[in-house]
């Protein structure tokens, strides 16, 4: 991705300029003035800051959590018993809660986000495109704690009736009967999933839009010229072309959903040790537990909570690294660089 300028006379020269300017600068600035060198090293330091912060996060957090690791061993991950008075810290149920709520959020959000992104890029006229983008971006601006407040005081109160209805409708149906299980609660995995879905939709939409827009115009026109309807054009030209990037966009949404704290902490129901398919049951997620139990934690418990944060950090980083790689690769492929 060289710096391709739009206003240069022809695309041929502009693609060369990117290399030229680097060569030019190397020749010109071999010996810079002292102010110039000072500026350059400041910029380098600022760039290095990213490495420094990420490195420090990893080092200090792992360092602080060693007490918990050595106290619990592998049980830390495999036990679902979280009993601070007895100094037993097993986070399996919290890992489950984190992943399960994020998955519920994806199930709700992915079809919506893809639909919206396709509508904005392929169907809507220009004025509507801009309006819809603004509206979706507004969702991203609402702070998560406000979603949490709404979720706990409004949504979780009013949605219980719907849960009860779902639960009795699917009672006895093989798989759905246990997913939409008995004893629905207002504050539950599903409420957390809904709130998360609303929060990650703008992220997935904006990334998907970028990816979809890289579909070459001539491929879309070719599909239309062959007599394809708009939907057939989308299925035949747009989706195959942007598949990789869309997967990446969804994964970035997943990473965001797993790390979301405050909104989930307020609506997930704070039940310990719960692992089960029932989406209407209360549970807990790693960030929510850290938030709720930090205040009165002693040294070992703080260490356990930090160890939980390390687990969360590693999980989100993994998801993000994979997602970023997938997006980068698909962007590179489509831009032909």
């Amino acid at each position: 991705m060289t710096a391709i300028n739009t206003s240069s006379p022809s695309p041929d020269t502009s693609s060369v300029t990117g290399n030229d300017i680097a060569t030019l600068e190397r020749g010109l600035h071999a010996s810079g003035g002292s102010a110039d060198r000072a500026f350059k090293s400041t910029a380098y330091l600022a760039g290095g800051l990213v490495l420094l912060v990420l490195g420090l996060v990893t080092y200090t957090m792992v360092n602080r959590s060693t007490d918990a690791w050595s106290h619990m061993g592998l049980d830390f991950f495999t036990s679902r018993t979280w009993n601070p008075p007895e100094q037993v810290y097993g986070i399996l149920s919290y890992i489950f809660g984190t992943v399960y709520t994020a998955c519920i959020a994806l199930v709700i959000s992915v079809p919506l986000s893809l639909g919206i992104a396709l509508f904005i890029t392929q169907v809507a006229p220009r004025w509507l495109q801009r309006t819809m983008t603004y509206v979706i971006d507004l969702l991203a601006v609402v702070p998560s704690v406000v979603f949490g407040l709404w979720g706990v005081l409004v949504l979780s109160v009013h949605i219980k009736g719907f849960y009860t209805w779902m639960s009795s409708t699917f009672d006895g149906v093989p798989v759905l009967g246990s997913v939409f299980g008995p004893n629905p609660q207002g504050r539950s995995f599903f409420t957390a999933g809904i709130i998360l879905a609303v929060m990650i939709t703008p992220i997935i939409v904006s990334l998907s839009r970028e990816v979809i827009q890289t579909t070459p115009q001539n491929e879309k026109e070719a599909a239309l010229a062959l007599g394809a309807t708009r939907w057939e054009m989308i299925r035949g030209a747009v989706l195959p072309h942007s598949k990789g990037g869309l997967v990446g966009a969804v994964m970035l949404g997943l990473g965001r959903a797993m790390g979301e704290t405050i909104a989930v902490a307020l609506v997930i129901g704070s039940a310990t040790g719960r692992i089960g398919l029932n989406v209407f049951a209360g549970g807990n997620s790693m960030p929510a537990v850290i938030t709720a139990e930090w205040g009165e934690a002693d040294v070992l418990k703080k260490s356990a909570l930090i160890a939980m944060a390390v687990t969360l950090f590693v999980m989100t980083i993994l998801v993000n690294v994979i997602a970023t790689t997938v997006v980068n690769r698909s962007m590179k492929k489509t831009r032909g660089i």
Partner: protein
Amino acid sequence: MSTTLNRVGAEQLALDLRTKRSWRSTKSQLMVALMFLAFIVILIPLIAVIGTVVSKGAGIVFRDFPAWFTKGIPGRTRVVGPGMGPAIIGTLVITGAASLLAIPLGILGAVYLHEYGRQSKPAQVVRFLSNVMTGVPSIVMGLFVYVIFTLRFGLSGVGGSLALACLMLPVVIRSTEEMLRLVPDHLREASYALGTRKGRTVLTIVLPSALPGVVSGCLLAVARAAGETAPLLFTIGLITKKANLNIFSGANTTLSAQIFRNAGEVLPGPQERGWGAAFTLVAIAFLFTIIARLVTSAYQKRR
């Protein structure tokens, strides 16, 4: 007579070529309708959230007008009535300090990436990691600052600012680099041709011509940071309700922290204050976003 006949013939021919109302075109329209439906579905929570925040929060904010902004938060929770001054000040000061840290460093980082590092290996690593850093959960950043800062210096506003700055940094780097990429190379070449050194070229030519985009990216980052709650739990504390203008020592409070506290209350007084704080916070965040949009559109018009 013959011309009308011809026209009729042509129309029939055209009609024959197109299949009328085939399943395929119905399906296509159905899918488009579903896509639009997706947009309507996502509007429901947006309107519901903003509607509730306005209807439940605006009342307490504008009742006996300046009281909400000037009075302290009632010490006894069950008291009904306004007062959110300390939290508003806290939000502004802590977010402001975070911006002072993150925006210059982020812009410099982007300058490194696009003006110095370009496609070199280290620059690619930094670019990749900064993208990854965007996804680090805010609560992890909060705990990180707790470990390296708060453990040593105690609860303070600066701790919160540090955590917010860590969250803002990659966002600022990313949006600024996008904007630097739009600055055409011939501007840089013209500057070099006049004998200007690189640092000066960046400061006087490249950054000013990318400024509107950079400003709008930074404003969006500030709007997001102002709403963060999780990293503040560990760094400024959640207990205090008192104003603390000294961000270098002592616990502090923000709008987001107050919303979080009051969300767990059952009494009408604190709940109403929670909604009022939410209204104020959403208003601040929207204000920054609107300014960012205006800056962008003014810039696009000028071009």
